[in-house]
């Protein structure tokens, strides 16, 4: 049964990818890339990758589609140029594809239980992580404790993305949006006419933020964690901005404070690492945080998930503010 679901989802993915390649209207491609991420996420669920499906859906369909839409909102929705040098590209692509297929010939079959990767490092995570780290969700325990330095790198990558948007577009660019709107005489640049939508969204935003907090602190026992919580929290803010306009949203939280929150998030994560250093353990070794190592692990994971959540939330909202502040430039 699972095989049939896998194969159908994969054929849908192939179909969407071909459609994305053929259609030349940018808006249609963005919609199809939204569907592509949804399909990917359901494929991940059917392959038991629950946290990854969570993140891929929240990021691929949510944030990426919203950012792409605000980009083509500020630029143009027409793809004019025909594909250049298709034959050469087809050659290169087929060559790489052939090498890859040649490479997978020796790989273990799909779902084969005695593949090497299931017998070397992974068994210890599955057996020992409850005694050593004390969280049911093995992925969270690896993410935050065994390979915690990778997650610090991940947080810094998100922080870099936010910094580059701030460096390239700049805070003043975002502030200028307000007076550019007023100059153009558009007083209410929001979806004022949608009364029903406004009430529903006003009702939903607090629930969404509450759900984000649930996901944040539920990371140990079920799918979820800092990154997913940050994205959902940011989608609550994005809902607010879409409904009530960028000016109102910027009055709620200004881009400058968002960059401070992001910096504090990364510093929380790094700070936990440095306190473990000062308390005698290695960098990011949570056992030294509390007398009882298991509690230390819980405290450490809690703090760094908080750091990841704050950083991701503030950077996602910051990038969205920067992109939607370019909206008025085109007219």
């Amino acid at each position, binding site marked *: *049964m*699972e095989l*049939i*679901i896998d194969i*159908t*989802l994969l054929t*849908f993915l192939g*179909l*969407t990818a071909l*459609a994305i390649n053929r*259609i030349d*209207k*940018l*808006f*249609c491609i963005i*919609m*199809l890339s*939204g*569907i592509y991420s*949804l*399909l990917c*996420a*359901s494929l991940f*669920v*059917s392959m038991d990758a*629950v946290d990854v*499906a*969570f993140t891929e*859906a*929240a990021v691929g*369909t*949510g944030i990426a*589609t*919203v950012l792409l*839409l*605000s980009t*083509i*909102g500020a630029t143009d*929705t*027409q793809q004019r140029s025909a594909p250049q040098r298709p034959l050469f590209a087809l050659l290169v692509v087929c060559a790489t594809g052939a090498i890859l297929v040649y490479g997978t010939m020796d790989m273990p079959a799909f779902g084969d239980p005695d593949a090497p990767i299931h017998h070397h490092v992974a068994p210890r995570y599955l057996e020992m992580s409850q005694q050593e780290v004390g969280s049911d969700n093995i992925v969270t325990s690896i993410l935050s404790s065994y390979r915690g330095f990778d997650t610090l790198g991940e947080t810094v990558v998100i922080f870099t993305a936010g910094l580059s948007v701030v460096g390239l577009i700049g805070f003043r660019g975002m502030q200028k949006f307000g007076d550019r709107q007023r100059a153009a005489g558009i007083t209410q640049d929001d*979806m004022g*006419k*949608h009364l029903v*939508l406004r009430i529903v*969204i006003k009702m939903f935003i607090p629930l*969404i933020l509450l*759900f984000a907090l649930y*996901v944040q602190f*539920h990371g140990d026992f*079920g*799918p*979820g964690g800092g990154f*997913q919580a940050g994205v*959902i929290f940011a*989608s609550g803010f*994005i*809902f607010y901005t*879409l*409904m009530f306009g960028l000016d109102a949203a910027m009055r709620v939280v200004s881009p400058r404070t968002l960059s401070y929150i992001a910096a504090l998030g990364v510093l929380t994560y790094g700070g936990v690492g440095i306190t473990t250093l000062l308390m005698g353990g290695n960098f990011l070794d949570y056992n030294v945080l509390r007398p009882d190592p298991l509690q230390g692990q819980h405290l450490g994971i809690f703090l760094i998930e908080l750091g990841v959540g704050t950083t991701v939330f503030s950077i996602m909202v910051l990038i969205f503010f920067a992109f939607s502040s370019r909206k008025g430039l085109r*007219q």
Partner: protein
Amino acid sequence: MSSILELMPSVYAGASLALLAVMGSTLVRAILGPTAFDRVMAVNMFGTKTVLLLSLLGFLSGRPDFLDIALVYALVNFLSTIAVLRFFEGRPQVVKQCSTTDVDLDVNHDADPDASGPTTAMEE
């Protein structure tokens, strides 16, 4: 008694196959859809069907506590629909650019962004 409960997984399996078929047809509509709004509707419908498929998969694989993911899908699906509507807010000429078939919408004058109200007829 237990024989009745054995029936349920096959019901789930049948339902998820049907849902896959529905998702397939929505996907085809999303790719072919003449007007831009068809695509938005198709994506919205695709999202809801995926949520239902996930709930069924959760029950099929015996781990019903994964329904948080289904809830996030519903949330994200709603978010992308609202973002698209925000994108189309007050920009009718953009809608024509985004429709694939260059159906000659008899637009006598280019509707300026603020004029609301129907000015064109749009169908296959």
